[in-house]
């Protein structure tokens, strides 16, 4: 097996032969970063029945990952303000390349591929300018950096490909940070989060800002349905005595924004950690590790609420939503749980 693996790795390096596709590797179904019992950080593949298919160490804490649309390959990003991202062969968990943020930039922890998988887009902080940028990487040329474009705001966090295959949606959280001051939020009184849509050349196509009462609602995480509805999950930076919705749905075709009142500052302790949407857009799941809650919505209607300590990662599957917790649980849509000695980090990435 080791021989075959190194043989394949050799072929990859030479770029001579096509690489393994998702169909060929069969599993895993999800990726998640985590922390091992010895306090070191890892990236794992998880199968549909909640078993770990591979586990590899990371140099520091990870956050989210992006799955290549064709090849069995994914990019795992460092937690902000990290400057590394690792390209993995998902069949084996072997590292095939590494991305380093250029001087003066750090990653925010999310990224998205173009439909053909030739380009990777990463959310980054141009921290001396206090400006969000999207790094553009040439996948076919060993993840070479091609350049960057503006994100349309400050503190871009999540980024997703739109179903038109030609544009991206970006959650500009609005919060300015600088690596010199760690994760300290520097601009809460003046923050202005937005949802920005850009094409692959960086042209701003559309931008949504909620009304001023929501100005301290940092738009962080995104999920996009096949029809192009963009579900956005927010983190409230104001006082917890105010009760505002933390979840919204933007339909860019209809030009509507619907806020979901049941996922609110008070029900979800001011903080949504992850969001997922079923392919047809009918069901939405969101988590709050702070209130230890998973909410599932049918349209705007709250259908179920599950309490689990430190729940955060959530992903849509054909049969419902899969979730993970910081206490090591992988929870299937049926409610069946598998416990692992790994504290699962924020995001469960479907592949």
């Amino acid at each position, binding site marked *: 097996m080791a021989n075959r693996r190194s043989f394949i790795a050799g072929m990859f390096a030479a770029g001579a032969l096509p690489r393994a596709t998702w169909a060929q590797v069969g599993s895993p179904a999800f990726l998640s970063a985590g922390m091992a019992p010895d306090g070191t950080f890892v990236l794992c593949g998880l199968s549909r029945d909640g078993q770990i298919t591979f586990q590899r160490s990371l140099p520091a804490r990870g956050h989210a990952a992006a799955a290549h649309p064709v090849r069995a390959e994914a990019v795992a990003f460092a937690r902000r303000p990290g400057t590394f991202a690792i390209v993995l062969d998902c069949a084996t968990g072997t590292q095939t390349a590494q991305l380093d943020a250029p001087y003066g930039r750090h990653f925010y*922890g999310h990224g998205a591929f173009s439909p053909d998988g030739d380009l990777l887009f990463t959310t980054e902080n141009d921290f001396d300018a*206090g400006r969000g940028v999207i790094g553009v990487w040439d996948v076919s040329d060993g993840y070479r950096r091609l350049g960057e474009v503006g994100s349309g705001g400050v503190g871009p*966090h999540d980024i997703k490909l739109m179903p038109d295959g030609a544009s991206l949606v970006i959650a500009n959280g609005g919060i300015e940070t600088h690596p*010199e001051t760690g994760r300290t939020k520097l601009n809460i*009184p003046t923050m202005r989060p937005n949802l920005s849509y850009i094409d692959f050349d960086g042209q701003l196509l559309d931008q949504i800002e909620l009304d001023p009462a929501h100005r301290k609602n940092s738009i962080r995480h995104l999920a996009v349905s096949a029809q192009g509805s963009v579900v956005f999950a927010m983190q409230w930076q104001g006082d917890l005595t105010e009760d505002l919705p933390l979840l919204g749905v933007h339909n860019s075709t209809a030009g509507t924004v619907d806020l979901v009142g049941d996922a609110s500052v008070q029900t979800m302790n001011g903080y949504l950690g992850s969001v997922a949407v079923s392919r047809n857009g009918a069901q939405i799941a969101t988590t709050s590790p*702070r209130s230890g809650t998973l909410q599932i919505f049918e349209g705007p209607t709250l259908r179920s609420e599950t309490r689990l300590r*430190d729940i955060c990662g959530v992903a849509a599957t054909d049969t419902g939503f899969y979730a993970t917790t910081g206490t090591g649980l992988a929870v299937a849509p049926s409610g069946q749980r598998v416990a692992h000695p790994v504290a*699962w980090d924020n995001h469960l990435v479907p592949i």
Partner: protein
Amino acid sequence: MRHLLSAIVIALSSPAGADGADIRAIVVGHILPGYQILATEAADLAATAASECAPNSPDLIADFNTAFDAWVSVSHLRFGPSEQQDRAFALAFWPDTRGSIPKALATLLGDQDPAVSDPDAFAEVSIAARGFYALEFLLFDPQFAPGDNPEYHCALVQAITGDIALISAAIHDDWRGGYGDVMSDAGNDTYRTPTEAAQQLFTALSTGLEFTANARIGRPLGTFDRPRPNRAEARRSGRSLSHVILSLTATKDLSALMSADSAAVAEAFDTALQRAEALDDPIFAGAADPQGRLRIEVLQQEINDIRQLLAESVGPSLGIAAGFNSLDGD
């Protein structure tokens, strides 16, 4: 006096809650006195400015310092009344990463904006032109000396001090007039359980220490290749190091109340406080010098160590699990 007050309050207050922290004792012994001192000192500052508004007035400068001390001593209590209507930000717009304070002040001065004569109108001006940090520019930065228009400069000093007094009184009133009970008597929409109230206090404590380490010390430190001593907090009035000491003193008081007077926690604070007091670098000018820098970095590390100690020793006893995701903030 404050310590005596805390001691009496603890003796008279209800027994410790299920989670080990007596929330009412903290509200009555730590939060209310802190905001009361701020309200009193801010009122004194406004009263002094009403009669003596020139930057060279020793009385005005003395009251500025006392009121600013009172603010820094509650600046870790960033929840509830201080966060409503952006009150805390209107008192303390710092860090000012984009240089908004001098810009906003220059606009007011250039336009001779009449908002200075009406407290309601002044409450609507740029938040960067309000509060202690804007006032510091007017009193200490030569660029904002009264110059050829002392009348407007004076009116602006009076508007800012009056605004500080109103906000400080409003925060204290809200704490006294309801929020203190909301926090102490959990089982309401804001705090469903005493654990949630304890978590809020613990978050405030931890975030307060993080702010002191990362912003108050981290901003002037910058990086080794590019130190930024000019970014030190309130350096114009020579208060940068003093803010670190005031904040450590206040968070030490809160930590003692939350940790049942843990000796290890008190010792960790004392170590950092002694180092800060021995630093002899009031505005962190040493950030630019390798030796001075090292001493500041050691202080910063000691404050981070306190946070770590609190997370390991105090957090769990309050029912606060070190949540991998819940404490991540991403």
